[in-house]
């Protein structure tokens, strides 16, 4: 005969069993003296526990009026409401500040351009005829951020410009433009000599209808003298008429030369050669100073072509501490890359 487990008898006495279970237990208890005694013992234990626990109670307490609970609840609600209101105020202030900032940013958008915005150009390798000790430069017009590198036989010793240098090379009106495609590779030739590198930067999709003024003091050379200087001392794009040659005097090594050439379309190309630091600095200042006309009617002036917008592409060649920067319309510049002559470089 199966006896009733102790815990089941506890549950039975605590009235925690179903009616069916109770009937079964009671019928068993009626015929089993052992379980009946156990039931009585558990009942005594239960009563004793209740009596012991009854001793450890607080003094007799009567519930205070329920109104106290209501009042405390109202106070808690009010406190929570005030916290919510404060939170809502803080959130609205933050949202307002953000919308103001965002609205200001949308109202005054910074000119942004990427290589994707540029006109399409032929794919494949471009080999500019840069006379650098007979070592050709190879540029693959890939993604805008991808550096244009020399032949893989050279050992790269630096793959990216520092942030300061990139800022210096940026020709946009604000520092924000420095983020646009100014990745450059420098390589060292197998014999240890530094070689020219190529850097294509997309800056402004607008065309370059007129020449922007150069920053600083420049002397314009007579065209004959200028042509001679250009042919012997500075790089230019061969086959394109030279319209102006300007020189910024300094020591023999600090001299900066700017050659303006006019394309058949009427657009200009400017080639600047000089010490890398000065050329970079000049490009930065050019970007910040142009356009030079009245900015109050920028849109109208742009539409009529009387304004000189920033160049939309920059081609950078570098050898040692010298730098050549060719600026002009990107579509033309890409097609002219192979015709850049760097006669003064050895």
């Amino acid at each position: 005969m199966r006896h009733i487990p102790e815990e089941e008898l506890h549950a039975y006495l605590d009235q925690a069993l179903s009616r069916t279970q109770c009937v079964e237990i009671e019928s068993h208890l009626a015929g089993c003296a052992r379980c009946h005694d156990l039931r009585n013992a558990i009942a005594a234990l239960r009563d004793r526990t209740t009596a012991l626990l009854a001793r450890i109670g607080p003094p007799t307490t009567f519930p205070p009026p329920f109104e106290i609970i209501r009042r405390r609840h109202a106070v808690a609600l009010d406190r929570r409401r005030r916290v919510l209101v404060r939170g809502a105020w803080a959130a609205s202030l933050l949202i307002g500040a953000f919308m103001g900032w965002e609205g200001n940013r949308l109202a005054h958008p910074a000119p942004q351009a990427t290589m994707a915005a540029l006109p399409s150009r032929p794919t494949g390798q471009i080999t500019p005829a840069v006379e650098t000790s007979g070592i050709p430069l190879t540029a693959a017009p890939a993604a805008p951020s991808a550096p244009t590198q020399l032949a893989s036989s050279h050992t790269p010793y630096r793959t990216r410009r520092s942030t300061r240098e990139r800022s210096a090379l940026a020709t946009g009106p604000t520092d924000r433009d420095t983020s646009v495609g100014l990745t450059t590779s420098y390589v060292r030739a197998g014999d240890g000599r530094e070689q020219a590198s190529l850097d294509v930067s997309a800056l402004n999709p607008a065309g370059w209808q007129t020449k922007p003024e150069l920053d600083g003091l420049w002397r314009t050379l007579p065209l004959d003298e200028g042509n001679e200087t250009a042919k012997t001392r500075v790089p230019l794009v061969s086959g394109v008429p030279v319209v102006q040659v300007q020189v910024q005097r300094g020591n023999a090594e600090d001299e900066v030369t700017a050659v303006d050439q006019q394309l058949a379309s009427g657009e200009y190309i400017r080639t600047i050669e000089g010490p890398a630091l000065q050329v970079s600095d000049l490009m930065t200042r050019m970007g910040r100073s142009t356009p030079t006309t009245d900015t109050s009617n920028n849109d109208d002036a742009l539409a009529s072509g009387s304004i000189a917008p920033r160049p939309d592409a920059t081609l950078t060649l570098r050898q040692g501490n010298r730098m050549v920067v060719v600026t002009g319309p990107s579509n033309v510049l890409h097609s002219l890359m192979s015709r850049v002559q760097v006669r003064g470089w050895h």
Partner: protein
Amino acid sequence: MGDELEELYRTTYATVVRFLYRKVWDADRAQDLAQEVFVRAMAHRPEKPRAWVFAVAANLARDEARAAVRRKRHLTLLKDDPVSLPTAEPSAEDTVERDERMVKVEQALATLTQRDREVLLLWDAGMSYPEIAHQSGLAVGAVGTTLARARRRLVDAYDRQEKQSHAAHS
């Protein structure tokens, strides 16, 4: 709901205070916490208010015990005394003023495990087995087993103290 809660308040308040008192061992604090329980019930409007009230009371008592342990530890550190182990037992000063038998029951209760004590106190507060199971995390079938063990241990511990007390007096 307001009337229902008010009725529950009238019929259960004393039980809740007693339940809390056996956990915090402070009658005033137990009453404060009991009122807090009903304030929260007004805000939450629980479906099963009686079970909910005891569940919240148990949680508040647990938080209170933790806070008391922190306070005690902080004071101990301030006095640069070694940290004593946290205990739910009443302080010695309080026990002097209490009835001797009451102290024995408190001490006997303190010998139980936390789960056994919780189940026993919930049962004494009038909670059903399913409610005890829900609150303690036990299976309903395990409540009977736990209660059987808790009752036996409580009574055994109390009897042991009685014997020791008699032996000390004689």
